[in-house]
């Protein structure tokens, strides 16, 4: 069994370890669902996986292609509406959500709407919020898994689709978003980031093996806080890799992207 791993496998594994047993998580297709499945097959058998379209706690036979496809309710505990899923999030039931985006800024604000400086004439139009704005507004902790580069880690996102800490500090609560919610971690191919307790700016938590502070800096337009102490990311174990490759994503749809 090959115990070297690619960046995707590392990111999924790190994400999975953040989902403690008994937690509830809303996931999307791709990396998030792979991470949640891996968590369920390792340390968190009682992780409740939910999908924004209405599926709750399926016994996932394979990774879904859509967050609404029939895999998301396969032997599930409940099949309901999109509104009800969002209402559960709004009520404070759901611990985690997983998001991505074309751009992220130092306060964890995400853009998945458009690139360009004129909203009415977008250079590139993306899907928009989908459920991202809802989930990041309402779930307790927002996790972002994304490759890291200068373009993505932008000084200023072209459009705040989805709230992070907005302008940092207490601005998120002042905007009316529920207290004690917000960005929690960003997991990239370079390291794992959290947010500074007061300024709410992005901060290095751990560096992946073989990566340097130079990599961190070179791949972000904004300054990421480097604290005195940070960890080295623990590599995926052979067991984690085995489960990921054999059970979670046997056809390599996600981990094959490297």
């Amino acid at each position: 069994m090959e115990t070297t791993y690619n960046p995707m496998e590392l990111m999924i594994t790190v994400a999975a370890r953040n989902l403690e047993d008994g937690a509830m998580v809303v996931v999307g297709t791709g990396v998030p669902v792979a991470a949640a499945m891996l968590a369920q097959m390792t340390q968190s058998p009682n992780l409740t996986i939910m999908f924004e379209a209405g599926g709750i706690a399926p016994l996932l036979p394979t990774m879904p292609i859509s967050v609404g496809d029939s895999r998301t309710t396969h032997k599930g505990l409940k099949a309901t509406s999109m509104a009800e899923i969002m209402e559960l999030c709004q009520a404070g039931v759901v611990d985690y959500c997983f998001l991505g985006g074309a751009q992220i800024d130092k306060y964890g604000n995400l853009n998945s709407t458009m690139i360009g400086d004129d909203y009415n004439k977008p250079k590139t139009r993306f899907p928009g919020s989908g459920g991202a704005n809802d989930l990041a507004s309402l779930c307790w902790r927002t996790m972002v898994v994304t490759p890291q580069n200068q373009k993505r880690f932008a000084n200023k996102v072209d459009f705040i689709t989805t709230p992070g800490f907005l302008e940092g500090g207490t601005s998120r609560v002042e905007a009316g978003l529920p207290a004690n919610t917000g960005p929690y971690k960003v997991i990239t191919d370079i390291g794992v980031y959290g947010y500074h307790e007061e300024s709410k700016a992005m901060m290095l938590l751990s560096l992946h093996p073989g990566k340097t502070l130079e990599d961190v800096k070179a791949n972000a337009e904004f300054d990421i806080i480097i604290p005195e102490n940070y960890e080295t990311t623990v590599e995926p174990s052979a067991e984690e890799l085995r489960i990921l490759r054999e059970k979670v994503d046997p056809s390599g749809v996600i981990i094959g992207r490297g």
Partner: protein
Amino acid sequence: MNDTKLNTGIGELFMSPNADEMRGFLRNKKKQMKNKLTTVAEAIDTYVNDGDYLAIGGFGGVRIPTALIHEIIRKEKKNLGFAGHVSTHDCQLLSAGKSFNRCDAAYIVGLEARGLSKNSRRMFESGNVKVTEWSNGALSWRFKAAAMGLPYLPSRVMLGTDTFKHSAAKEVECPFTGQKLAALPALYPDVAILHVHRADVYGNCQIDGILVADDDIAKASKRVIVTTEKIISNEEIRREPGKTVIPYWCVDAVIEMPFGSYPGNMPGEYFSDEEHLKDWLVAEKDEMQLEEFVGHHILSSKDFYEYLEKNGGMNKMKQLMQAEHLY
């Protein structure tokens, strides 16, 4: 908190959220339980007009009313407004037909794990489509407000973001707690098209698996066209009143259309046709190629059965049924 500034989105509100207007409409609408069986062509002719605001059931590639959308394209309906409430393959189809000129967008141009639709992007980047931004939750609740007979619902989403700024939502203060909330205007579409598992001839509908927002959309919309995998008897509906998701008085037209969600997934019945959906993505790379593709599959097919035949007919459907049941 009384000195807090309350923001208002600058996006256009395409439809009036006035509940009294819908009440007036519903008061005069005939609500008798009568046989509403018709054809796809007849239903689209009768109930969808150029310029109408359209809501589509299902979830983009799941339980979508494909046959009805094809007919909208074949009949060259234009200048529609539409609710982009996780709109994936349906958005691809309406973009291919250049059918709309305004959109309440929560999720458009994307295809979830399948990627992005080049042609939907062309449509939205053309400058010919007015867009107002929302989140999935916001659009769901806008339908729900309408279904509840209210002009708005409060929520805790979109606050502080550009999504809010380009929406038509308004910040309000909770009269009890003083906290800031995003008021979402009710959305009353002119016409909704839905695909369900089972319906009787009167329009009482059953849906298996997730509802997405179909129950609320049916109640929110002035006119509702339903295709169903299967017509069942009214007696069967009455056997399990708890299973009726959409009641007859919401529905104007019922069409029995097996595989009506193809190439989408119909939960419990057949899985999505991923090959055909990939063909779409390939065809979309080039506008000429797409025109030919749409011409072949949709415009030149006299009906949805012919489209199914062109894509492998019963044999293919059998494979998709097997895929749904994981063998």
